[in-house]
């Protein structure tokens, strides 16, 4: 049936909670600030001007994940889900509206983040930013938007699957901060296909794994889709 009212309702729910709006602002702020810091002191033999400019995404994605998680987790407290599903009883329908209301703003904010990081990072880098062509810079900025939106959706799906924001963050934050840093440096093999490593290829000028920028984002998209489908499956099967 008509999807627009459900989407409108879900978007209003996000817009009217300060912490959700705050986490979207934090995505921009954390990414731009940490990118600028990285650009202040670039160096090393494997200096990649593109990734230096988008380095802050490593931190900004935490805010994106927090956004995706809290937006969904609120439904699993105090019987909020029962009220939502009594308004929109078709559960798949409702969850699609919820995911869209998470994904679209995250993508829009991600794009803003990408282009803001790009301009700030390039300004800070100065002459060191020479090298990558305009297509590469744009690819990085758009990839940044897509990547942040996909991570928010991945977190949203995982939260619906686990029916708890604490559980979802408890898995995602250590995973991103520890596992990915440790395993991720061992390039090649399975580590390339982790949701964050795969998607972040799009933020690099050069890569040596089996995934390119767009195939990498496609792998992240598969992770997000899998999490969302699993979340939807659990939502449709369980009593609310």
């Amino acid at each position, binding site marked *: 049936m008509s999807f627009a009212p459900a989407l409108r309702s879900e978007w209003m729910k996000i817009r009217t*909670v300060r912490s959700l709006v705050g986490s979207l602002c934090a995505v921009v702020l954390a990414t731009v600030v940490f990118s600028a810091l990285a650009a202040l002191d670039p160096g090393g033999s494997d200096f990649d001007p593109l990734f230096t400019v988008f380095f802050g995404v490593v931190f900004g994605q935490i805010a994106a994940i927090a956004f995706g998680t809290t937006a969904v987790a609120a439904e699993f407290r105090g019987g909020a889900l029962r009220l939502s599903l009594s*308004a929109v009883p078709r559960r798949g329908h409702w969850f699609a509206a919820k995911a869209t209301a998470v994904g679209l703003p995250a993508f829009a904010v991600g794009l803003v983040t990408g282009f803001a990081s790009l301009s700030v990072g390039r300004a800070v880098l100065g002459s060191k930013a020479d090298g990558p062509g305009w297509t590469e810079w744009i690819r990085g900025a758009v990839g940044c938007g897509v990547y942040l939106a996909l991570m928010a959706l991945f977190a949203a799906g995982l939260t619906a699957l686990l029916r708890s924001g604490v559980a979802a963050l408890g898995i995602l934050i250590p995973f991103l901060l520890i596992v990915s840093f440790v395993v991720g440096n061992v390039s090649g093999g399975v580590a390339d296909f982790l949701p964050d490593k795969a998607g972040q290829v799009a933020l690099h000028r050069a890569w040596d794994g089996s995934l390119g920028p767009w195939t990498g984002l496609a792998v992240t998209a598969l992770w997000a889709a899998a999490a969302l489908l699993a979340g939807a499956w659990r939502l449709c099967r369980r*009593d609310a």
Partner: protein
Amino acid sequence: MTSIDVQDLTKEFGARRAVDRLTFRVLPGRVTGFLGPNGAGKSTTMRLALGLDRPTSGTATIGGRPYATLTDPLRRVGALLDAGAAHGSRTGRDHLRALAASNRIPVCRVDEMLEETGLTTVARRRVKTYSLGMRQRLGIAAALLGDPEVVLLDEPSNGLDPEGIIWIRGLLRRLAAQGRTVFVSSHLMTETASFADHLVVLGRGRLLADTPVRDFIHARVQPRVRIRTSDTDALEKALAAHGHDAVEHADGRWSVEHAHVEDIGRLLSAAGVPILELVAEEGTLEQAYLDLTASEAEFTTSTQEV
């Protein structure tokens, strides 16, 4: 006309049967009280009727259709399940606006309902600053948002102050008078009797009674006569001769169950029993309800032991 039809409804949570082959109808134009002790399965039944829980067997329909198949359901059915359903960081008005948007209900209804429930002054405050009573009113406002023909309220007077309880009584009566189907759960008998026309009583998931309130009172609230006399032997003899069982209490008073004061007074005076005190006592509605649910509990225990 829109009724709620529950047919052979059963819901099991693991090995526990929360709702046990329940069949009843809730008809429009009257307030139906849904009574039972805590854990009797009232909330589960309501969730089943709203398609939120899936029944193990049986059906629950509203106006002949399963709830989940309704288009813009808030315009047909309004429900209050949990007072905690509103997000604490959202304002009361935003909470209702988001809900209204999902069912294409105009925003003016939001302000009308805030007015109706007495929340206009706090509408732009965040829900976490609300008292339990205010949250309950917000939940009722949400239930009435779509001007629904069917209203299901789970313990709506929870947390309301005395003024609020009087308000909700009036509101329920008004909704029924407008021809709506009003189904209200409670675990308090006297409170329910103050607004309900009809009762559905549940004990351990089973239907114990489905009857008009007046019939329930008539059939279950037994009259009792209390007597004080200076001649206990004569009293006992006179009562026994007419087949009444008299019970002596520690304070020297006697009481006769299931008897009217007119009959007892006449027969004692005819028998020449000296009377010091003769009082008609009505067993309370609450007592009748407790007796009903307690007998169910005993019944269940004894069958489990067999």
